[in-house]
């Protein structure tokens, strides 16, 4: 029986994904768990794992296609069974506000700006380009309204075959001259997909989730000493960072404060069974917050090892789908930048976020005397619809207590 492989939902706000690359070809045998494709979402390129075993019989989405979540991108089946017809989806186009307004104004008129950024390609040009492996993004159309015609693709094929070095599949496009610079020197740069996703998430969280904020100074002197000692006996890959200590402390505290490992839904507060903590990773092009998964039973060395690998994958744009889409609580940490206090915006849909500043030597009162201690300020931003300030205070104090008594980090 044919099994449909659909565009997965990788994150609550994901509505569509770009099929970047097929790693398997029709006819290949697929085992459950095999990486079969790379999908680009708003935030990252993630690997798509097969959830079923079988033979990849048909690839429905082509590389470069933008596919709505839930639409079929491929079919798995037995090697010789008959496959049902699957319609290749039409590329998704969202109506612009202007198009919507225009449609409302005159239901009979077609707004010519609707979908105007779509690359116009004649059917025969698209077919020939597909057969020849020509990337239509690299072809300039010479037809009406810039439509890419058969002659344009044939010219691109000829250019590739005559001039390009063997094995190089790209075509040197004839670019039109750049437009003259505008009189206004201010530069406007369209939002990247990642930037747009960040903008959307932050706006959603700030507009829909009423935040309250609590801060506390944590004396990290003992914890830093603990960390030094455990790192002496751990392998390099498991070396514990300050952030790993915070992750572990939060994982422990969340088990006894489930309101901060929750989401508000239409039906009420949904308490998540698993503790999946997102950690903010700054990238040149923006920000991602991949998740460390199922932390309730994981010790510090394992957290350290997993978080190192996770950050590396995030920076390489190679996050796995579940890492990208999961998460029940978020930690954001600008300690490495010398920031004292970071008050975060909740990761949309979650109940709270913990912001961590840097660990610095500061004067503190210890047993009635002023002493130099290593202090860190934690700031809890929490959704007031889910929890109240006193609950947040108890949760934050619990994190503080665990960090100040580091033996609790190891049990």
């Amino acid at each position, binding site marked *: 029986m044919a099994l449909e492989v659909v565009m997965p939902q990788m994150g609550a706000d994901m509505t569509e994904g770009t099929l970047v690359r097929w790693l398997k070809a029709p006819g290949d045998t697929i085992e459950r768990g095999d990486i079969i494709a790379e999908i680009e979402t708003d935030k990252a390129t993630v690997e798509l794992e097969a959830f079923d075993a079988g033979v990849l019989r048909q690839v429905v989405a082509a590389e470069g296609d933008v596919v709505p979540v839930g639409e079929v991108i491929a079919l798995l089946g037995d090697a010789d069974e008959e496959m049902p017809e699957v319609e290749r989806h039409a590329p998704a186009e969202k109506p612009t506000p202007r198009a919507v307004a225009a449609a409302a104004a005159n239901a009979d008129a077609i707004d010519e700006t609707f979908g105007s950024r779509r690359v116009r390609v*004649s*059917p*025969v*040009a*698209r*077919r020939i380009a597909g057969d020849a492996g020509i990337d239509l993004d690299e072809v300039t159309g010479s*037809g*009406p309204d810039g*439509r890419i*015609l*058969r002659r344009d693709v044939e010219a691109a094929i000829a250019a590739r075959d005559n001039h390009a070095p063997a094995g190089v599949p790209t075509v040197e496009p004839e670019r039109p001259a750049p437009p003259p610079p505008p009189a206004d020197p201010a530069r406007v740069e369209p939002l990247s997909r990642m930037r747009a996703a960040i903008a959307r998430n932050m706006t959603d969280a700030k507009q829909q989730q009423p935040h309250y904020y609590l801060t506390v100074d944590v004396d990290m002197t003992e914890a830093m000493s603990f960390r030094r000692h455990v790192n002496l006996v751990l392998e390099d890959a498991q070396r514990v960072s300050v952030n790993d200590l915070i992750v572990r402390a939060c994982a422990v505290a969340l088990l006894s404060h489930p309101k901060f490992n929750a989401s508000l839904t239409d039906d009420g507060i949904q308490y998540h069974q698993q503790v999946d903590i997102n950690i903010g990773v700054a990238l040149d092009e923006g920000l991602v917050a991949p998740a460390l998964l199922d932390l309730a039973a994981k010790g510090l060395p394992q957290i350290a090892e997993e978080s190192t690998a996770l950050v590396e994958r995030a920076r390489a744009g190679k996050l796995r789908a579940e890492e990208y889409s999961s998460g029940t609580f978020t930690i954001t940490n600008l300690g490495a930048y010398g920031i004292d206090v970071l008050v975060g915006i909740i990761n949309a849909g979650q109940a709270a976020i913990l912001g961590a500043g840097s660990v610095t030597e500061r004067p503190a009162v210890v047993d009635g005397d002023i002493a130099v201690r290593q202090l860190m300020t934690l700031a809890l931003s929490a959704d007031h619809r889910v929890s109240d300030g006193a609950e947040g205070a108890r949760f934050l104090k619990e994190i503080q207590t665990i960090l100040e008594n580091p033996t609790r980090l190891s049990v």
Partner: protein
Amino acid sequence: MTEMRMRDAIREAMREEMLRDERVFLMGEDIGAYGGSYACTRGLLDEFGPERVRDTPISESGIVGAGVGAALAGFIPMVEIMTINFSLVALDQIVNNASKLHYMSGGQVNVPLVLRMASGGGSQLGATHSHSLEGMFAHFPGLTVVCPAFPGDAKGLLKRSFREPNPVVFIEHTALYGARGEVPDDPDHLVEFGRAATVRSGKDVTLVGYSGSVHQCYRAADMLAAEHGLTADVIDLRTIRPLDMSSVIRSVRRTNRAVVVEDDWKFGGFAGEIAAQIMERAFDWLDAPVARVAGKDVPMPYNRNLEYAALPSEEDVVEAVLAML
């Protein structure tokens, strides 16, 4: 081969069929003593007598109904409806009786009726006498619709129509009656239904027409070659039901572009049917949307200049082709 005019080729076809089969007879308004409004039956009354060439009252519904009855009774009648405009008052006989009796009788009866009629505008006959209704007849299952563009085809197709066991609507363009062309002398020259003719070969675009519009396509192909260095396939459909789409599809898959030309109104017209079938069967070969060049969406004006503007011209065809490139 003999060079003759369209009207003479049509008359030759009827004459030969009357000589071949004595069940064939003709009736219509002014077809006997007057020789037909477009002179297609001139001389036939003298040759075959009033039994087989019958002048009728001005009652299209009556004479088509009589034709249906005669066909049911074993004759092979040819009913001339002076112009296609008057077929509108005979539609019940054509659509509800002639086209359906074979089907509704479960195949027990046939209606071997030939309905000839003159079609098209361009003669300043005004809005009610300038229709091009070929596509309307093609809409009905049970009818064969023949639309010749050249005298040789007209003869072969009309002779073939007399041998068809069910009704044929044979439509002649008024502007083509005087057109000259080579006509085979062979009394068994038949042109089969559902076979389009490629009257000109090219590689840049496929121009599709029937009846009068074939000539606009042909002249447009001349202009494209002379002024723009483009060559065109010109396809003369010859019959629009049955419709030879295979020839059109073969050509479009080669040229990647198509323009369909007809005198009738574009809205809801037969060119839309051809364009849709091209889309269905040659989508991945198209380099441009299929274009239709057809009549303007107005009742035909009487004024000569306005009438000319309302009808499709070879210039319109050339313009449609250039807009695709």
